[in-house]
């Protein structure tokens, strides 16, 4: 068995760390851009809409900030305009079984989980937030209305 | 008086490592029980919506006030210029830091969301005495480290008095703040009085010294270092004095509460009809934890015997836990007096005859508390081993300038 001297051990660790960071710095953006479209679940309403509330690039990069901003506005100031609301993310991106039953959005392979698992980022929204649209209330009425909204097309301009 | 020489704790490696391994095992078990509670939620503990702070808080508050009490020994040497106490200063600082870290760890690990510690460290509400305490606790550690530096480093020596004085003020603020966590609660009859801050200061003096004495006697005994009668007698008399001060404040506290008719119910509960809490108060806190140690410490024969002195320290500490149990849990178990002149027949799920909140500590929370004690001892054990905290000798001819060999 080869004896690793401390010096070599250190170099080895350094190389590993460098490799890790270069992976993050250089490869991930392209990786994400190529593959991320696959994460929209076909059985979700999002699959029928041409674009999210912001262009997809923007959402990929900044969705957490948008949600967090809306979160403080909602909890502290009661602002419930729905553009960046998490409950709307959920009602649009929830996948459905063949029978039409909603699947938890953080379940394996579903919208939130698939991407967050790939990026290895823990999210704890669903410690508290419902993972499928549930209960009554205006957020569901809003979601219902959203359903009637046609995919944005050139003709609508 | 001879020059004081400090040396690392040199007990045999096998013995030292077994001690560390034992402490590490206790800490490990506490870690596992924390994970267990955090995974399942607090329903696996005895805590509920009435008794919201339980066993972990008993241990944590005890350790935190004992920490500031342990630092008191150093203050006596530095601030009050008692040279006899100076050799005790370094261990005093180390033990204080260890106890505080142990207590804080328990508090943090008992949070409903310990993963959000970063939130607690970055978002403050300055009207909360709890938020101030976060600064008092972390600041205490910084002050103690500076204090230790001024005691141990030649370059620090000129600042020793000023840092020492500052540390004493800080530790008083810390204990006052901890007492105020309870004292500022206007909603509960057992609290809502500033004398709790004083009571906590008095308790910290007694419990900090009791722990200090035990650690000192144990470490010296293990390493066969001489601990003279003069030193021991001073410390045990000081402990007795502190216990009496504490008893006095307890007396004033209850007299204050007994005077107003408003507080009759809670006083009756704690002093007479509270079952386990009454037992804890009289038998645990007063008899075992205060009277018995006083008798031992002043008894003409027993007070000469080191084993009995150690026993007195142990009883004082046990009484300290009983005191915390009464102050923290007993006060919550008694229903809040919301409707004076009326008897509560039903309160949600609770009904008449059954209104005293039940609380039975579960094993995981007990283990978490013991783990905090182990952390405090672990830090101390590592400290005295790797750095020069303990004086070579506290024999009479070393510490006492006026010692004459008989």
């Amino acid at each position, binding site marked *: 068995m080869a004896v690793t001297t401390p010096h070599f051990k250190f170099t080895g660790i350094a190389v590993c760390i460098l490799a890790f960071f270069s992976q993050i710095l250089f490869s991930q953006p392209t990786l994400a851009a190529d593959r991320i479209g696959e994460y929209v679940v076909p059985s979700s309403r999002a699959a029928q809409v041409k674009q999210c509330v912001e262009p997809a690039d923007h959402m990929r990069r900044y969705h957490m900030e948008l949600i967090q901003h809306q979160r403080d*506005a909602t909890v502290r100031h*009661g602002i419930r305009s729905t553009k960046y609301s998490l409950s709307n993310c959920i009602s649009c991106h929830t996948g459905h079984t063949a029978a039409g039953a909603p699947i938890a959005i953080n379940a394996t392979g579903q919208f939130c989980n698939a991407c967050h698992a790939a990026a290895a980022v823990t999210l704890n929204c669903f410690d508290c937030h419902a993972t499928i649209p549930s209960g009554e209330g205006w*957020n569901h009425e809003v979601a219902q209305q959203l359903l009637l909204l046609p995919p*944005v097309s050139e003709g609508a301009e | 008086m001879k020059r004081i020489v400090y040396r690392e704790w040199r007990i045999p490696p096998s013995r030292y490592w077994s001690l560390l391994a034992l402490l590490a095992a206790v800490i490990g078990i506490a870690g596992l029980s924390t994970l267990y509670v955090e995974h399942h939620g607090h329903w696996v503990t005895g805590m509920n919506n009435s008794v919201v702070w339980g066993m972990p808080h008993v241990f944590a508050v005890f350790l935190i006030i004992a920490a500031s009490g342990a630092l008191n020994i150093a203050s006596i040497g530095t601030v009050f210029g008692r040279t006899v106490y100076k050799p005790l200063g370094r261990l005093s600082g180390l033990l204080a830091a260890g106890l505080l870290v142990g207590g804080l760890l328990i508090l943090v690990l008992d949070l409903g969301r310990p993963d959000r510690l970063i939130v607690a460290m970055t978002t403050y509400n300055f009207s909360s005495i709890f938020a101030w305490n976060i600064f008092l606790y972390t600041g205490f550690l910084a002050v103690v480290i500076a204090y230790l530096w001024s005691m141990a480093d030649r370059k620090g020596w000129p600042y020793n008095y000023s840092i020492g004085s500052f540390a004493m003020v800080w530790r008083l603020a810390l204990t006052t703040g901890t007492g105020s966590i309870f004292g500022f609660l*206007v909603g509960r009859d057992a609290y809502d009085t500033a004398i709790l801050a004083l009571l906590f200061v008095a308790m910290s003096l007694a419990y900090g010294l009791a722990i200090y004495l035990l650690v000192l006697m144990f470490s010296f005994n293990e390493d066969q270092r001489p601990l003279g009668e003069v030193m021991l007698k001073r410390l045990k008399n000081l402990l007795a004095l502190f216990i009496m001060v504490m008893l006095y404040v307890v007396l004033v506290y209850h007299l204050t509460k007994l005077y107003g008719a408003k507080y009759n119910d809670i006083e009756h509960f704690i002093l007479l009809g509270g079952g386990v809490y009454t037992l804890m108060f009289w038998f645990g806190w007063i008899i075992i934890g205060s009277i018995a140690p006083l008798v031992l410490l002043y008894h003409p024969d027993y007070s000469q015997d080191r084993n009995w002195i150690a026993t007195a320290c142990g009883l004082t500490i046990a009484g300290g836990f009983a005191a915390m149990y009464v102050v923290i849990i007993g006060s919550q178990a008694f229903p809040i007096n919301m409707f004076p002149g009326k008897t509560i027949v039903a309160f949600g799920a609770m009904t008449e005859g059954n209104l005293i909140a039940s609380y039975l500590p579960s094993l995981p929370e007990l283990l978490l508390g013991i783990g905090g004690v182990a952390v405090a001892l672990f830090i101390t054990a590592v400290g005295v081993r790797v750095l020069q905290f303990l004086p070579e000798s506290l024999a009479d001819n070393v510490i006492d300038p006026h010692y004459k060999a008989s």
Partner: protein
Amino acid sequence: MTYASHSHSSPDAIDTPDSIDAVDTDRRQFLHYAAAGVATVALGGGAVLTTLTATAEPRTTPVTSTHRWGMLIDTTKCAAGCDACVTACERENGLNLQQSPTDDAADWADQQSAWIRKVTLRDNLTGQVTQLPLMCQHCAEPPCVDVCPTGASFKRADGIVMVDRHTCIGCRYCMMACPYQARSFVHQPVAQKLTQVPRGKGCVESCNLCVSRRDDDRQTSTACADACAASGQGAIVFGDLNDPNSPLHQALAQVNSRQIRQELNLNTGVRYAGL
């Protein structure tokens, strides 16, 4: 259609149109969606139009201190054996979805969340029995807000005292401080919850005067007050303490009412008559 509703603008929106930046910045986008929505209405006909008139009006501007929400509870109307308010509260906030993780019913009774409790009292002198529901009293000077180390426990501008679960660390100091024992700690993982009431293990929660209803202009009451009225007691009047014309204000002017633990001078938003 959501966005279409914004172009109609609620009265609030006219007062301070751009007060919260990122939420309101993309007015263009709103109009874009609005145009799409209107196009749909034009094309879609009757069915869609009905939906438009029933449009939900989520709030677009920060709450202000113009309103201060509160309640008057007339204990003389509160009936023995009735727990309509408790049941309604549980249904509204998903508390009825709680499942006991333990077999020990006695333990669970004091560990499950209770936002509202039915309390029965007997006068020590006369033996007179009083019934009342007890929930968060929504103090103007709330002790729970004072003691919270992170500021998670806060009072909204319209007087609602509530917990921001995003910054609550679960220290439970607010529960120690509350003079009404109105708060609950979530002791167990929450498997089922409602979209409008997120709740989860390790945070503290309490009555928030049905806060999501408060942010909807069409709603004028709380679940408990509705249920109390529906059960025929009508013991709970909900409304705006600041508005002299509100039914609550008028009811308060007509009866003797008091605060529970009045001596603490917390200026509670919930007042009791006949106590």
